[in-house]
């Protein structure tokens, strides 16, 4: 694509050819909403007039709590048109735990001190009281969209790229989400680098089920097509989870070329889409399925390729990226080197845990694991691996990923305390652990999930994968975590896993032995305690993955000996 010649996101949007298709929002076979750029801009202008009538002025925060769809996207664009700062929050759904949702809603709305909070007319009344309003803030339901006058003139705004464009929230799994304020310049810089890295063309069409309150949904699947005038085919995350095959049928129907997905999607599709449905899918149009926001797992890639090879799934389309809300979006992207594939390396599991070094070994050799990279830094971005003391580590050494870029956030909104902790001397400390090898970045997990047993670094997902390879353990239903053992003076590995069938509970002793032996054999570390549970015991996140911290709490509540008595 050509470089962008504009200072703000709204300038880029207003330059779109009016007849160009923009959003196809799929709800169901007989319910599909479609807008062109012209229609979208017209709706946004009307709503902008409405916002002004509600007293919104440049710089005011506008919180949007609306279901996934065209309306929330129009409201977002409308807020930017009047120079206000929109932020999209998760819309409640049946899978979200009400207590957790209320906590997030009140915390985030309090921190943003919004002028206007827009909720849709279906928004549950019992949740409204958790929206924290400051001073003269207003909550409005169901803002008029076609009602505004079309001859209303947009306010003259300075074409200043350093103005804040919007706030996106970092996807924290624990605690309150942090608001990341981003300027037009930062977002545009990111989009230019990203579009070059993925060799975006005017022929591309994006497919997404990603929520718009998350950077993958907001940046890759809304801002990118908005600025480059590309079509995007969308559905809501809940609709996708209910009917996972709909993702593949929409890609087939609309000939989509690009999609961003978190790693678990690959396995979820391979396991939940029935063999009967599969002949209907044609994935030959897809250039890139970009694995993003979770460590990339070779096992998931293999499973997907095996399941959908007959539908045109090819290893070349399975790309990866390391992205952070604090950086607007992508830091790295795979497929930039001549091989066109993310780096893959077999490393010694023992060296990785004992010495925290990724030491390449022969593929498939004993005690080795295969790691897949997230690619190379895109233009304008630098990543380095640092020790806890802040010393830059050499190639292959595992440490915290720190990044610097021309799209890096200024700070967390209204939270200088959190900003000071995360940003040091112009570098953002991500909290992710990884290493660099041959210019490629390998991300292996969150620092906070790391299990340190007598100086050995263990990544829960490696232990979980070994445990799940036992035929009587339900695949994907194991959680490993570290628990401090005061007698040993170090962490001990605790594993909890679901057996495949209720009746397997009678064989716990033999399963436990096999699991312990397998972990020692592959990682060289003994497991402290193994707990086997009946099917459906492990607590899952809204995405269906085991929720490590909640599962850990559940187990500790049941097992008094884990409470350090």
């Amino acid at each position, binding site marked *: 694509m050509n470089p962008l010649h504009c200072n703000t996101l709204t300038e880029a949007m207003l330059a779109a050819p009016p007849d160009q298709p923009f959003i196809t929002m799929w709800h169901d*076979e*007989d319910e599909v909403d479609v807008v062109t750029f012209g229609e979208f801009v017209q709706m946004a202008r009307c709503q902008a007039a409405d916002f002004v009538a509600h007293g919104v002025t440049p710089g005011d925060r506008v919180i949007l709590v609306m279901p996934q769809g065209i309306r929330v996207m129009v409201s977002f664009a409308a807020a930017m048109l009047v120079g206000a700062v929109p932020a999209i929050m998760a819309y*409640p*759904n049946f899978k979200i735990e009400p207590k957790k949702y209320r906590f997030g809603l009140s915390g985030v709305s309090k921190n943003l001190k919004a002028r206007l909070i827009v909720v849709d007319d279906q928004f*549950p009344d019992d949740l409204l009281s958790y929206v924290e309003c400051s001073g003269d803030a207003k909550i409005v339901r169901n803002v008029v969209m076609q009602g505004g006058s079309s001859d209303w003139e947009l306010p003259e705004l300075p074409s200043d790229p350093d103005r804040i464009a919007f706030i996106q929230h970092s996807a924290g799994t624990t605690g309150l989400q942090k608001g990341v304020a981003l300027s037009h310049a930062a977002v545009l810089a990111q989009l230019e680098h990203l579009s070059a890295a993925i060799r975006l063309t005017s022929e591309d069409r994006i497919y997404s089920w990603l929520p718009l309150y998350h950077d993958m949904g907001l940046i890759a699947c809304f801002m990118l097509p908005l600025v480059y005038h590309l079509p995007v085919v969308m559905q809501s995350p809940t609709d996708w989870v*209910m009917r996972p095959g709909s993702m593949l049928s929409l890609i087939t129907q609309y000939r989509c070329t690009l999609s961003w997905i978190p790693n678990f999607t690959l396995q979820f599709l391979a396991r939940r889409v029935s063999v009967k449905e599969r002949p209907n899918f044609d994935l030959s149009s897809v250039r890139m399925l970009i694995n993003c926001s979770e460590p990339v797992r070779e096992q998931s890639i293999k499973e997907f390729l095996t399941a959908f090879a007959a539908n045109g799934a090819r290893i070349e389309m399975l790309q990866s990226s390391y992205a952070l809300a604090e950086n607007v979006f992508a830091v790295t992207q795979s497929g930039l080197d001549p091989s066109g594939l993310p780096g893959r390396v077999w490393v010694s599991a023992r060296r990785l845990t004992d010495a925290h070094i990724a030491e390449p070994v022969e593929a498939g050799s004993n005690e080795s694991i295969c790691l897949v990279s997230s690619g190379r830094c895109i233009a304008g971005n630098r990543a380095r691996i640092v020790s806890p003391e802040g010393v830059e580590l050499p190639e292959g050494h595992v440490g915290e990923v720190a990044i610097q870029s021309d799209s890096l956030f200024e700070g967390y909104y209204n939270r200088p305390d959190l900003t000071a902790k995360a940003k040091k001397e112009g570098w953002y400390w991500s909290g992710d652990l990884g290493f660099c090898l041959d210019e490629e970045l390998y991300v292996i997990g969150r620092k906070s999930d790391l299990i340190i047993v007598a100086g050995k670094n263990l990544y829960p997902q490696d232990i979980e994968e070994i445990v799940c390879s036992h035929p009587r353990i339900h695949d994907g239903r194991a959680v490993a975590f570290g628990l401090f053992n005061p007698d040993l003076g170090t962490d001990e590995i605790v594993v909890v896993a679901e057996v495949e069938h209720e009746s397997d509970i009678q064989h716990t002793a033999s399963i436990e032995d096999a699991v312990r032996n397998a972990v020692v054999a592959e990682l060289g570390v003994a497991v402290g305690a193994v707990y086997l549970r009946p099917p459906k015991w492990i607590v899952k996140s809204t995405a269906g993955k085991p929720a490590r911290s909640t599962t850990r709490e559940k187990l500790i509540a049941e097992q008094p000996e884990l409470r350090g008595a």
Partner: protein
Amino acid sequence: MDEAAQAQELVRYILQEIIHRPGTELTPDSPLVSSGLIDSFALVDILVKVEDVTNLRIPAGKIQAKDMDTVNLMLATAKRVGKPRKSK
């Protein structure tokens, strides 16, 4: 299937496929998530089952946790927001 039979089928499904705990008592009015009997992710599987027994398509985005807390609430919700299914 009439509504009582649908409710019975859902109770059977939840007991056998989701809860797996022998001796658990469940009626169409037993609270499920709020009582801790099931976790909210299991609701996706249950909702797919509700679609099967009612032969309706349920727009999942229009449903809140409180609409799904008992089998009877689920069936009422399905009736309220569900659409006839075209294809399986």
